[in-house]
């Protein structure tokens, strides 16, 4: 008998679609990890359960239906009964995908052969999963999950892969915010090796977002490594976010709003003709559209200019915007990131377009700074930490790859890797993101997704084969995730750390050593 709990015996069927028979009472779960033993070849095949069905010893195909009918007839007669000898008459058939096998030499191989027919299926031992621990990175987000059980094996990604972009996909309530807090918390604890620019539209990341919750402010490294900017800061919690009109580009505006062709042309004209360093925006906001048409913008329609003026007024009136370039904190934000800090930008008081405008400005500035460093000072560039830009509701700005001409986010997805800047796109609707853009994301954190179209686009764009995992993604519980990453041998079922519990285990910075007794004695004498 097996050393580990016995589950059943293999009876087919193909390399990528293995079936095994289990006892009727065996409780098998989608996503459960199991091992098929091929003792003849000395191989241990790693399986993931993708479906479970009932089988019966009866040769009558309608046996189960007939028996259910018998039960109902007895219920109806007021003499409820139960089938006898269920374990002898029924069994379970589990469909498992073969994830690969560990050969006699201890190396993991992709699944290219059939495990031995009638081989024994058991739960995996620690030794079976040992090869995985070698592939887990330093940004740990949880523990390996096998069905509903948690295996004591950390799951994480290598921080070096952050510039290869990260996608976080989940419907509401599935644990996106918790995952983002854990991810941010890991970067905080990374002692400056990585940096994170995190936009917080719901104001939940700093303090946790509710009673009993913990936020980044409670992280042991918060004081040293967390910087918070907010248009409406509470005393002692954050710095006042100020951005200069002079820093805003036409592209930022086009990222935040949808401009028609003529409107884009008029915008370019305004930028060119009404004065640089933000003056063009101020003039659009303050002058009458008719006057602008009579003067510099004569070749554009009045209605077009009116649209520009209306939007410019909205920007100029934002409390966080200033016409004084010296008050801008963009440089400070970039410095913090260069110093390997987590920069949290609280955009919870802003409307969606304003939030996009801020995110666009800061992200574009970061990308330009890193690109400049890359081109002009490779040594300095090499010292800059790999940086991740995390954006919620990312589908708003990642709809079309073609937008990369003016929209910084598709450009970041396409070019950021070269400059060690990655995009972390958080969304409930991956189906709205351009498929080619999604294919740029090397790491997926997939939490529960109810919409089949969302699951479909992830299956087709993931770096690992998720084709059999539709039902598992559909049935993921809050806090359960699948992690795909080129470093991982397969999509890793994961139970994400609960942030509130996890931060209690994080070692903080070493406290300053106490001054020895009498160290200052006599100094002031």
């Amino acid at each position, binding site marked *: 008998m097996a050393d580990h709990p016995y589950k059943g015996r293999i009876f087919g069927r193909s390399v990528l679609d293995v079936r095994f028979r289990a006892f009727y009472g065996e409780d098998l779960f989608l996503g459960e990890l199991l091992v098929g033993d091929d003792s003849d070849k000395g191989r241990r095949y790693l399986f993931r359960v993708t479906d479970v069905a009932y089988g019966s010893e009866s040769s009558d195909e309608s046996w189960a239906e007939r028996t259910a009918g018998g039960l109902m*007839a007895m219920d109806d007669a007021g*003499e409820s009964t139960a089938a*006898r*000898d269920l374990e002898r008459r029924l069994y379970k058939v589990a469909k498992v995908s073969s994830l690969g096998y560990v050969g006699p030499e201890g190396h993991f191989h992709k699944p290219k052969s059939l495990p031995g027919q009638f081989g024994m299926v058991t739960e995996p031992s620690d030794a079976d999963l040992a090869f995985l621990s070698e592939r887990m990175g330093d940004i740990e987000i949880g523990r390996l999950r096998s069905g509903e059980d948690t295996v004591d094996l950390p799951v994480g990604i290598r921080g070096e892969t952050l510039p290869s972009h990260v996608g976080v996909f989940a419907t509401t309530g599935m644990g996106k915010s918790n995952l983002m807090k854990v991810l941010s918390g890991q970067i905080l604890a990374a002692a400056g090796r990585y940096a994170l620019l995190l936009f917080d539209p719901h104001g939940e990341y700093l303090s946790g977002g509710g009673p009993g919750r913990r936020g980044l402010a409670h992280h042991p490294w918060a004081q040293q490594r967390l910087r918070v900017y907010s248009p409406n800061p509470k005393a002692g919690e954050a710095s006042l976010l100020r951005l200069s009109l002079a820093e805003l580009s036409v592209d930022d505006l086009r990222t935040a709003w949808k401009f028609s062709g003529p409107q884009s042309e008029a915008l370019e004209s305004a930028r060119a003709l009404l004065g640089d360093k933000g003056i063009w925006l101020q003039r659009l906001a303050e002058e009458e559209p008719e006057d602008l048409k009579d003067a510099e913008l004569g070749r554009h329609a009045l209605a077009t200019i009116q649209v520009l003026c209306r939007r410019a007024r909205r920007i100029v009136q934002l409390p966080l915007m200033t016409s004084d370039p010296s008050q801008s904190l963009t440089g400070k934000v970039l410095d913090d990131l260069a110093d390997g800090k987590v920069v949290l930008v609280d955009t919870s008081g802003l409307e969606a377009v304003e939030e996009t405008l801020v995110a666009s400005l800061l992200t574009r500035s970061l990308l330009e700074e890193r690109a400049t460093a890359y081109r002009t000072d490779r040594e300095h560039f090499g010292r800059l930490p790999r940086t991740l830009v995390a954006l919620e509701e990312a589908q708003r700005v990642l709809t079309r790859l073609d937008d990369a001409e003016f929209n910084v986010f598709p450009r970041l997805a396409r070019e950021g890797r070269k400059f060690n800047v990655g995009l972390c796109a958080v969304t409930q609707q991956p189906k709205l993101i351009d498929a080619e853009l999604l294919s740029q994301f090397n790491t997926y954190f997939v939490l529960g997704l109810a919409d089949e179209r969302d699951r479909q686009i992830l299956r087709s764009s993931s770096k690992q084969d998720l084709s059999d995992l539709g039902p598992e993604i559909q049935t993921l519980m809050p806090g359960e995730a699948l992690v795909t990453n080129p470093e991982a041998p397969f999509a890793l079922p994961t139970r994400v750390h609960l942030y509130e519990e996890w931060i209690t285990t994080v070692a903080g910075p070493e406290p300053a050593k106490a001054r020895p007794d009498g160290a200052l004695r006599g100094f002031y004498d």
Partner: protein
Amino acid sequence: MHREVQLLVHDYAERVRDAAGYLSRLLADDGTRVDNPTDERLAPEGDQIELRPDAEIIEMGSDPGVGVTVAAIDGGSACLVNGRSFWVIAYRAGTIWHRDRCTFNEDCDQLNFLALTQSDAKAVYADALRRNGVVRDRELSDLGGVVDVLRELAEWHRVTAALEQAAPGDLVLVDGSLHPGAFLPPSLVTPVHQLALEREVDLVGVTKASKLRWGRYAPLVLRVRRRAECEVGPDARWFLQVTGDPEAPDAADPPAEDIGGHGWRSEVYVARLARRGPYAFRVDAVRGRRSSEELFALLAGLSDDPAFLGYPYPLARVHQVVALPGHLLADLRRDLREACLRQGLSEDDVDLVMRDYHLTLNA
């Protein structure tokens, strides 16, 4: 010149109507005599079984039989080659033991696989009788359906073993009749009945397809069932005693006397064992300890498996254990064919031996 035009399709509708009418008249056929084909009589020659049209239909409860051990015995058989002058047969019998809704033991013979001529068959039959402690009392002129005979003898051998193993109050179930037949002499059956009575074990045979008829030709089980539906309704469990004296003062107790004086002790009943069961069955019983009502309540309790409503589950279980499924028979035929070839038979000869020309004609 006149040419007869042949119909492409024969009009047989009138003949079908005639046949249906004939069956309807059969079912309505009246009479009090209960009879069986001559090869399986209910009573010794000369005796007649009478059943009044108003014989009592008794409703019974359902006894879950907590702690009661039930043995069930059945056999499976097949004739793999029927060469008319010889046969290749396979059969086996088995026993399962069931208690408190669980089967706790299954025991099945190894497959008996025999090639026999008519003469061999008689010798094997005589040997099987001897194995059951019976000396053949007359020369058989013919042994038709030899595999069924041998299987049945194997089952009776197991019945004896089960009765010896059972404790008082236990139940031994058999698939089929408990009465003697053409190849099942009373001298074999009677001691088994006696053993059940001595050990106070109830021995019950359930016949799925009874040949009993009531009146001239009406199938007994069907007629009783139709009567019961009228009298106690379609949603009831019931039994009707066909043989033995249901009016006798001790009818509720195990029969102490040899009813009818013919040696064997089994009573014949017709019963419906579940309120929603689709079938009624002929049930033979040698009541070792229980009254009729207690026994049928126990049988009803065993007949509640939703896959086999109205049929005692242990019999369904043992049937599955001993049955010779199609894939097994196909393997046996293939192995036999290969073995014949290895013995030096030509392909043509093997084909001639194993091929049933009806299959060729029907293909």
